[in-house]
C-alpha cells in the first residue's frame, strides 16, 4: 500500500477517464448519457481517492508526503516530482470535490457536445490536481499553464454570447503572465541548478536577483489570482463561461494564484517578498474597495459575484504577505472558504439562470416565494461570503484581518471597510432578488429538485464545518506554513 503511487493515480485517473470517453460509440443521445455517467464515476472515484489521501495524511509530519520522484529529463535535472503537504492537501480535495459538483450541475444545462464537455472537465481536473501536487518547478509550470487549454475550450465552445472574446482575453492575459513566470522559473533552474521545490527552498538567491525573479512570478500569479489592476479578464470570463466553468474558475483556477505565491514567492524568494509586501498591500487594499464598489452597481448577478471574488482575493493576497502565522493561515483558510462559497454562489446563479434564462437583477423579484429552499441555501452562502461568524468565510477573514493589522494597520482598516462594503452589495443583491412584493410571477420559477438540492447541501456542510470547528483544518495548514515564515532574513 505504501508503494502505491497514490498521487499519480489521483492526477492521471481523470485524464484516463477523458480518454475513456472518446471510446464511447453509439447514438448521440446514448453517447451523452454514457459520457455523463462515466465522467461522474471517474470524478467520484478521484474524489474518494483524495479523501483517502486526506485520511492517510499525517498532519504532524513535515515536508512533502506520498512523494514520488523519478527522472524525466536527466540532461536538465528536471524530474517528475509530486508530493502533498498541508497547504496543497485541501486544494486537492477541493478540486476533486468541485469537479463532481460541476459534472452534476451540468447534467441538464449542457446540451451540445456533451462528451467533449465532460472530457474537457476531466482534463481540467487532472491538470489542476497536477498543479497542486507538483513539487518540481517545470512540472508545476506544465500543469499550471496546461489548465488554460481545457478552460479555453470550456468558455469558447459552451459559453455565452461573447464567449470568443472572453476566451481569447482569458487565454492571452494568463499566457503573458505565465510566460514571464517561465523566465523566472528558467532563471531559478539555471542559477539554483535544480527544479525541485524542496531543494530550491534551501538555495539562497541574492536579494537583487530575487527582486527581478519575483516580478516574473508576480506577473503570473497576480493575473491568475487576480489582483487589481490585472483582473479585467475575470468578469468577462465568468459572465461568458457556462456555470460549471465559472465554478472551476472561481473555485480552483483563482486559487492557483494564491497557491503560487505560497509555493514560490514566499519560501524561495523571501527577501523580495518582504521588499514588495507594501506594493501587494496597496494593490490588495485597492482591490477590496474598488471591486466592492464596482460590485455594488452591477446589474448582472454573475458579474457581481465575479467582482466579489476579486475583493475576496484581495484579502488573500494581503494576508499572504503580512508575514505572520495568523495572516498566512487566514489567507489559506480564506482561499479554501472562497473556493467553496464562490463555487456555491455561481451554482446558485446557474440554477436561477436555467429557469429564467436571464441573470439581470431587475428581472427578479420575490424569488423566495416560488423557491423557498433555494432562498435559504443561497442565504447561507451569501452570509458566508460576507464573513458571518459561524461560516467558513469568517474564519479566513478574521484571521487575515488580525494578521494584517499587525503588519500594516492602515491596510487592515481598508480591508475592514471592504468587509462592510461586501456586506452591503451582497445583502443589497439578496434583497432585490429574493424579497419585495411579487406583483407578477417573473417566470416559471420552481424550487430545487433533488440533484440541485444535493449539490448545494453538500456545499453547505463544509462551509458550516469550517466555520464552526476550523481546528482540524488549521492544524494541518499551520505546519507547512512555519518554515515559510522562517525563510525571510531577519
Amino acid at each position, binding site marked *: 500500500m505504501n508503494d502505491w503511487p497514490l498521487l499519480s493515480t489521483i492526477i492521471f485517473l481523470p485524464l484516463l477517464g477523458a480518454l475513456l470517453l472518446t471510446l464511447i460509440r453509439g447514438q448521440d443521445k446514448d453517447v451523452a448519457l454514457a459520457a455523463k455517467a462515466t465522467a461522474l464515476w471517474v470524478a467520484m472515484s478521484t474524489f474518494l481517492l483524495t479523501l483517502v489521501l486526506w485520511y492517510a495524511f499525517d498532519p504532524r509530519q513535515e515536508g512533502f508526503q506520498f512523494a514520488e520522484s523519478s527522472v*524525466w*529529463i*536527466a*540532461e*536538465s535535472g528536471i524530474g517528475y516530482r509530486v508530493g502533498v503537504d498541508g497547504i496543497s492537501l485541501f486544494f486537492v480535495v477541493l478540486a476533486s470535490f468541485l469537479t463532481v459538483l460541476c459534472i452534476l450541475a451540468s447534467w441538464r444545462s449542457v446540451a451540445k457536445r456533451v462528451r467533449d464537455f465532460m472530457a474537457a472537465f476531466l482534463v481540467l481536473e487532472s491538470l489542476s490536481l497536477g498543479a497542486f501536487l507538483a513539487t518540481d518547478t*517545470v512540472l508545476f*509550470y*506544465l*500543469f499550471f*499553464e*496546461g489548465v*488554460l*487549454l481545457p478552460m*479555453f*475550450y470550456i468558455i*469558447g*465552445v459552451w459559453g455565452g454570447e461573447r*464567449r*470568443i472574446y472572453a*476566451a*481569447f482575453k482569458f*487565454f*492571452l492575459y494568463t*499566457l*503573458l503572465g505565465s*510566460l*514571464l513566470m*517561465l*523566465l523566472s522559473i*528558467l*532563471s531559478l*533552474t*539555471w542559477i539554483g541548478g535544480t527544479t525541485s521545490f524542496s531543494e530550491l527552498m534551501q538555495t539562497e538567491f541574492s536579494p537583487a536577483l530575487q527582486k527581478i525573479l519575483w516580478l516574473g512570478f508576480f506577473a503570473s500569479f497576480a493575473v491568475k489570482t487576480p489582483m487589481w489592476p490585472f483582473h479585467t479578464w475575470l468578469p468577462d470570463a465568468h459572465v461568458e463561461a457556462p456555470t460549471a466553468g465559472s465554478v472551476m474558475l472561481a473555485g480552483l483556477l483563482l486559487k492557483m494564484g494564491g497557491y503560487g505565491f505560497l509555493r514560490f514567492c514566499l519560501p524561495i524568494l523571501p527577501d523580495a517578498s518582504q521588499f514588495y509586501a507594501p506594493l501587494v498591500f496597496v494593490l490588495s487594499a485597492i482591490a477590496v474597495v474598488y471591486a466592492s464598489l464596482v460590485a455594488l452597481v452591477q446589474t448582472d448577478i454573475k458579474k457581481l459575484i465575479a467582482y466579489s471574488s476579486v475583493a475576496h482575493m484581495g484579502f488573500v493576497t494581503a494576508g499572504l504577505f503580512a508575514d505572520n502565522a495568523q495572516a498566512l493561515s487566514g489567507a489559506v483558510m480564506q482561499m479554501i472558504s472562497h473556493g467553496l462559497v464562490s463555487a456555491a454562489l455561481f451554482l446558485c446563479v446557474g440554477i436561477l439562470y436555467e429557469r429564467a434564462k436571464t441573470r439581470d437583477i431587475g428581472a427578479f423579484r420575490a424569488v423566495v416565494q416560488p423557491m423557498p429552499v433555494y432562498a435559504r441555501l443561497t442565504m447561507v452562502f451569501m452570509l458566508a461570503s460576507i464573513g458571518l461568524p459561524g461560516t467558513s468565510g469568517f474564519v479566513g477573514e478574521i484571521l487575515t484581518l488580525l494578521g494584517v493589522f499587525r503588519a500594516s494597520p492602515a491596510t487592515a482598516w481598508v480591508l475592514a471597510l471592504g468587509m462592510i462594503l461586501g456586506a452591503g452589495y451582497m445583502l443589497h443583491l439578496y434583497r432585490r432578488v429574493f424579497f419585495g412584493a411579487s406583483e407578477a410571477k417573473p417566470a416559471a420559477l420552481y424550487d430545487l429538485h433533488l440533484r440541485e438540492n444535493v449539490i448545494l447541501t453538500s456545499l453547505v456542510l463544509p462551509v458550516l464545518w469550517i466555520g464552526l470547528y476550523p481546528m482540524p483544518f488549521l492544524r494541518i495548514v499551520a505546519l507547512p506554513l512555519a518554515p515559510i515564515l522562517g525563510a525571510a532574513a531577519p
Partner: protein
Amino acid sequence: MSEVLAALWFSLGVELVLACATLLLLLLGLLLPERNSARLVCYLSILLLVALAALLLWSRQDWRFSNESFSSEPAVTAVASLIDRHFRLDAFALFGKVLILLTTACVLVIGQVFVRHEAVSKSLYRFEYVIVVLLATLGMCLMVSAQSLLALYVGLELQSLALYICAAFQRDNLRSSEAGLKYFMLGALSSALLLFGCSLLYGSVGAIDFASISSASLSGESSLMLQVGMVLTLSAIAFKISAVPFHMWTPDVYEGAPSSTVAFLATAAKVAALALLMRLLVEAFLPLSEAWQPILALLALASMLLGALATLPQSNLKRFVAYSAITHIGILLIGFATATPEGMRAVLFYLSIYMTMTLGLFAVLLAMRNAGQPSERLYDLSGLSHTDPKAALALSVLMFSMAGLPPFAGFFAKFYIFLEALRSDLAWLALCGVVASVVSAFYYIRIVKVMYFDEPQEQVTLRGRSNRWILYGAAVAVVVLTLSPSWLLQQSEQAVRVLFAL
C-alpha cells in the same frame, strides 16, 4: 582503389547514392508509360529517402567519421584528405541529413494528394517534379556536410536552382510562375552576395576551408575584409532562412508557389540552411563570435517581432505559414545568438520539433478541399471539429504546440531556447521572445477557435489517408516528445559536440 571508394563513401556516401539513384529514376521515368511514371517514381523516391535515412541511423555506430582506419598508401590518403577538406560526414551532418531525408520523404507523401488533383495534375503530376525535388535534397545533403566555401556554394546553388524550378513548376499558373521568378531574382541576388562574401574571405585568409578561416580569425588576423566577408556570407544565408530583413520573398513565394513545393520550402530547405548557418558560424567564425552575436540577436529580434505582428491579419494559410515561419526563425536565431554548445543544441532540438509540427500542418493544408477544389483559406477550416473531429483535435494539438504551450513538445523547444538565452545574458532577447510568443499564441489559437467555435462549412473535406496518418503521427510525436525529450536532446547534443570539437 577500394580504399579510395571507402573514403568517398565515408564522406559522400549518401550524396553519391542519391545522385546515382536520381539519375536512374530519371531514366526509369522516361522508360515507363506516362500514366504510371509519376506515381512509381514518387514511391521509389520515398522508399529511397527513407532507406537512406535508416542506413545513416543504423550505421552511425560503425562509422567513426575519420580516416584513421585507412592505409598509409599516399594516393589513398591524398584523395581522402582532399575529400575530407570539402565534405565531412560527422555526427552533425548525420543529424541534419536524417532530418532532411525524412522531412523530404514526408513532403513527398503528403504532396501526393495535392499534385494528383485534376486542377493541378496537368503540370505538377509528372515524374520530373520528383526528380527536381530529389536534386534539391542532394544539394541540401551537400550543404550540411560542407567543409569549405566551395562545397558550401555548390550545395547551396544546387538546392536553390532546383527549388526555383519547383516553385515555378506549375507552368500554366501565373502565380506559380511569378513566385518562381521572384524567388529566382532575389535568390540570385543572395547568391551574388554569397560569392562576393566568399571571395572576400578567400582574399583575406588565402584558403577556402572552414578550419583555415577559423584559425586565421583566431590568430588575431581578423581584418576588416574578413569581417565584411563574413557579414555578406551571413546575409546570403539569412536570405535562405528568410530572417527579417531578408524575408521579403517569403510570403509571396509561399502564396504563389504550388503548395507541395511550399511544404518542401518550409521544411527541408529550412533545415539545410539552418544547419549550414550553424556549421559556418561554429566551424569558421567561432573566434569572431563577438562580431556576429549582435548581428544574429538583431536578426532574431526583427524576425520575431515582424513575424508575430505580420501573421495577425493573414487569412490565407500559406501566407500564414510564411509569416509564422519567420517568427519561428527568429526564436531559433536566439539560440544561434548565444554562441554556446547548449544554445546550438537547443536550436537543433527546436528545429526537429518545429519540422514535425510544420509537416502536420502541411498535411492538412495539402489535403483541404472546398467543394472539391484545393483550398488554402484559413476560414475553410471552420467547424472542422464537427465535420472531422479527429483531424481537428490533432491539428489543434499541433497549433498549441506551435504556440509553445505545455504539455506539448513546442513548449520544451522554447523552454531550452529561453533557458540558454538567459544563461548567455540575453535576457532581453528572451523577454522579446516571450512577447512574440504571446502575440503568436493569438493566431495559433485563432485556428483552434475557427475549428471549434465557428459554424461548420459542409463542403470542406480533408482528402488522403496518408496525409491523415502524417497529421496524427505529428500530433502523437509532439506528445511523446514531451513525455521523453531525452532521446532527441541527446542526439542534438552529440551533433553539436562535433561542431565545437568537444
